[in-house]
Structure formats: structure tokens, C-alpha cells
């Protein structure tokens, strides 16, 4: 089967560009029904950003990454990495990948693993050696460089995986569950490292179940479910909930305010000195504030309430599942 290939793109503003990417797994002997893993996925990931792909198990996240990396052939659609139409083997010299379930040769030391994968990335030996001396301290494996990988813990293997993904100093990184098995301190270090890499201009495509982590470091996020993109936006956009506002108040709120608010059908709840108001629009919010001031309540702050990425994610999936 021949796939339509995109035109070569001279403007490589997008690190990843996909158009109507579709993958249908067919059973060669028709014993099982076909499974549509991806359906018309069009996505743009800009250079220099951390992009998180979220979705429940079986949403198609891994299939999407596998198509981009050439492990899986798409059934339809087209894709580009760093301005190069896919499939293309050479573009992988500029890509780093940390798979979710990686297995390194257990008889090698971290230095030997990195020499092997650096060599496969077509790097000269001297360049690999120099890169190793930078990477091992960076991922915290310097003191274990002589130990065989078979003796590594899961967290250490994950750190080695990160070093492996970075060995060729790639401008584009695909990371599948980068903090899996890493302790909380290590997770913070990994997050800091990813932010640092972003500041160096690298694009990071993050595939993770840990939504709080994605929320902390991602610039933009896409939510994928049943092979379809449900929403793409900044973390800010996805977590904003326009009808909930936290209002800090000083002192007691008079009973009269409660009565007037109830009469005007203004919904709110108190939690200590914080009042959470649910309003339909900005006018209603202003009406709410006016009522508070009318009753002499001192307002210390007003902030639009944001749900966590996890809450937004679950709400979005719930809406999709609703009949």
C-alpha cells in the first residue's frame, strides 16, 4: 500500500506535524474484527515546547508515537518530524526516544550501553565518550558507571534510559513515562532536567499517566481517547474553569449577605476565609462582588478557580462517554 506523503516543509516551526493520521489494525485471517487505534489525528507540536499526550489505557497514545518513530505503519494520513516527511530513517539521528518498557543488555555497563546506542545513532566514538561523561552525572549514574545493568534498580534503569535517549543530543525527544519507577526526589530531578532541556531549545513529547507531572512541566497538552483527539491546548486553557471563583474575605460575612445572595440565586460556599462562588458570567461575578461590598465585606483577593489537569481530564472523558 502506498501512503500519501506530505510535501517537504522548509519551515520547520513544527517539531511534529500530523495530518489525519489513522491506524487500523486488521487481522490477516479475519478471525478478529479490525481495531481502529487512531482516527484522523491531526496534531502540531511546536519546536521548543514540552507537549504532553494524555489518554486512558488503549487510547492510542503509544500507537501514535510508534507511527512517528516508524515502528508501526499508518493506514492513512501523513506525518512530519522536524520538517521531514515520514517514513524517514535518517531523521532519527535527530530524535531521542525513551520507551515505556525498555530492556537494556544486562551484561553491559551503563557506559557500554551508551556506547552501543551512540554508535547506532551514527556518532563518532570520541563524541560518544565525551557525551557519556556529560550525561552520566546529569542523570545521577556517575558512581554506577562500572556496574552491570543487570544489578540496576528500576529507577536506575529509567535514568539510564533517559541518558540513552539523550546520547545523540537530539532536538526532539519522545519520552514514554520518563519517571516510572523513580523515587520522588528523582522525579523532581527528572522534571528539572526536562525543563532545562526545554530551555536549551529541545522539543519534548511526553507520554505519561502521571497527570500532575504533565501539568507541572508541559506547555501544551492533547487529550486522546479511543483514537481521537478530544482537546488540545495549553495547560492553562485545559484547567481553567470559568464559572468558579475563589474570593478571599477578611472577617465575618454578615448574615444579611447570605439572605441577599440566596434571594439573588447566587451560589457559593464558605471554607474558612475563602468563599467559592459559582457564577454564570462576569456580570454575575460583579454582582456578587457588589453584594459583598454592599455588606461591608473586605475582599482580600479574587481568583478564577482552576481545576487540576486530572479533574479536567476526567471531566472531559466523562462528557465523551455520556450518551
Amino acid at each position, binding site marked *: 500500500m502506498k501512503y500519501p506523503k506530505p510535501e517537504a516543509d522548509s519551515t520547520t516551526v513544527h517539531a511534529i506535524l500530523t495530518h489525519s493520521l489513522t491506524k487500523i489494525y486488521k487481522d490477516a485471517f479475519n478471525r478478529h474484527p479490525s481495531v481502529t487505534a487512531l482516527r484522523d489525528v491531526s496534531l502540531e507540536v511546536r519546536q521548543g515546547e514540552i507537549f504532553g499526550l494524555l489518554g486512558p489505557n488503549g487510547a492510542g497514545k503509544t500507537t501514535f508515537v510508534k507511527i512517528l518513530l516508524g*515502528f508501526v505503519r499508518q493506514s492513512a494520513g501523513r506525518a512530519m518530524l522536524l520538517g521531514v516527511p515520514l517514513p524517514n530513517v535518517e531523521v*532519527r539521528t535527530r530524535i531521542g*526516544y525513551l520507551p515505556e518498557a525498555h530492556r537494556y543488555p544486562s551484561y553491559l555497563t551503563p557506559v557500554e550501553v551508551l556506547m552501543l546506542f551512540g554508535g547506532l545513532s551514527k556518532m563518532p566514538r570520541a563524541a560518544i565518550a565525551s557525551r557519556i561523561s556529560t550525561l552520566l552525572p546529569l542523570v545521577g549514574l556517575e558512581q554506577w558507571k562500572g556496574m552491570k545493568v543487570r544489578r540496576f534498580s528500576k529507577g536506575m534503569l529509567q535514568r539510564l534510559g533517559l541518558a540513552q535517549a539523550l546520547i545523540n543530543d537530539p532536538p526532539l525527544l519522545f519520552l514514554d513515562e520518563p519517571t516510572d519507577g523513580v523515587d520522588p526526589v528523582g522525579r523532581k530531578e527528572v522534571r528539572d532536567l526536562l525543563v532545562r532541556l526545554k530551555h536549551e531549545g529541545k522539543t519534548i513529547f511526553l507520554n505519561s499517566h502521571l497527570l500532575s507531572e504533565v501539568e507541572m512541566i508541559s506547555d501544551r497538552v492533547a487529550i486522546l481517547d479511543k483514537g481521537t483527539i478530544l482537546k488540545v491546548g495549553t495547560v492553562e486553557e485545559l484547567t481553567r474553569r470559568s464559572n468558579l471563583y475563589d474570593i478571599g474575605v477578611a472577617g465575618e460575612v454578615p448574615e444579611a449577605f447570605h439572605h441577599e445572595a440566596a434571594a439573588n440565586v447566587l451560589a457559593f460556599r464558605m471554607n474558612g476565609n475563602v468563599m467559592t462562588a459559582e457564577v454564570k458570567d462576569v456580570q454575575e461575578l460583579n454582582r456578587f462582588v457588589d453584594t459583598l461590598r454592599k455588606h461591608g465585606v473586605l475582599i482580600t483577593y479574587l481568583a478564577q478557580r482552576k481545576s487540576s489537569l486530572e479533574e479536567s481530564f476526567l471531566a472531559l472523558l466523562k462528557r465523551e462517554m455520556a450518551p
Partner: protein
Amino acid sequence: MSILTLIRGTIRELLSKATLYVLLGISTLVLLGTLVAISAQQTNEGIVLHLFGLPISTPAQPEELMPSVYNMQAGLARGLFVGIMLFGVFATASLIPDSLEKGIVDLYLSKPLARWELLAGRSLGGVCAIGAVTVYFIAGVWLTFGIRAGVWNVHFLLSSITMTLMFAVIGSMLAVLGVIFRNAAVPIIGCFLYLMVVDNLLDSRQTVLYMLSENPLYRTACDVFSYALPQVSSMQRELSNQILQRPVAWQAFLQPILSAFGLFGVAAFIMHRKDF
């Protein structure tokens, strides 16, 4: 460069396993045995060859001894051929299936490495490792016969290259079966069956298989299989001719080499179509 890295990595992997060391150990034992067993004694009438202290030749001049030594070397080579093929298949059958396992194939394919290169690198790594053991053994035997009997048969030394080539031919079969079944058991059983049964049947098809039926379609099928699959038996015959310094029909090597390329092409095609 990626293929060379992969070949180095594959050899390193084989060195981490016991199988290659067992093969090296057996080779060393046989070498030492040969060194102890073979001796030559200078008498007034000429040189007498001894095997475990017993004379096995009449007194002769060095050039008259050569046919006996060549025959011994050819016999050793035939035994080694079978040993190398069977042990080599056993030692290297898992190389390709292992590299296609989840978590490993992802790492390889994320590198600028075409799928056929992954196959070629892994196969050639196995061939290089088995080739090194073959050269070690053959060179050892060659030195033994040279030092003990004064016969330096370069053709015997060169037969190590021929044997490595023959193992590479079998390696292509391992590649196809490894890619299709993604485990080591089927390639091992398949290659053993081929080497011990199928190849011999196809080689003697006119005297054995043709007797089973006169159906032209059946006979054509036998011919097609015989020409499509590597004719290892004919290579083995020519290996003996090479060592005995008889005329060698080099075209006997052409068919297996072409067949190996064909099989490797099939493996690469299947690999290319697979989703990982």
C-alpha cells in the same frame, strides 16, 4: 557504521553467554587431542605418521605423505562442518528473535537503522562469532599438522572461510524463521531438520523423492525447492574437494549464496511489513 556497531554488540552478546565458550572449549580439547594424537617419526626410509603412537602410514617422503594428511584433514573438516552448523545454529538462533522482543526492538528501531540493517547486523554478528571459532579451530589443526607432520595445506586453512560462508547461508534461514516465529525454538528445529533431513532428501531427489510419485507437478515442486533452498550437501562435497586439492566446482557455492540472499530478502520483506 550502525551495522558495524550492531555486529560488535552482537558478538559481545554472544560472548556473554556460555554457548560460545563451550564451543571454544570443545575446539580447544579437540585441538589438544589432535596435538597429542598426531605425531611423525623420521626413519631411514622416510617419515612415518603415528596416531596415538601407532603407525598409520608406511615410511614415505613428505610429499608422499600429503594425500594421507589431506584425507585426515578432510575427515576432520567434515566432522567440524556438522559440529559448527549444529552448534552454531543453537548458539545464534535466538539473536534475531531476542532483538525483536518488546522493549528491545523499540530501542533499535528508534535509531537511524533500517530494518534490514538490524537483521543484517544481528545475522552477521552471529556469523562473525561462529566464523572466529571456526578459524581458531581450523588454524589450530593446520598448525598441528604443519608442526607434527610437516604438511602445510593452505587449502585446509582456507576451508575455514568456506565453512564460515556455509554458516552464513544457514544464518539466512535462521533470519527468516526468526522473523516469522519470533522465538528461538522454531529456527533451531527448522534448521536441524533442514540440515539433517530435507537437504539430503532434496540432494538425492532423483533417486529418492522421484520414486515416491511420477506426478510431474510433484517432481517440479521437488526441483523448485531444491533450487530455491541452499544446497548445503553440494557445498559440503566441494569443501572436501577444496581440502583434498581436487578441482572445485565453485558454481556449487553460487546457488547457496544466491539462495541465502533470497531468503534474507524474504526475511527483510517480512520485517519491513511488520508492526512493532
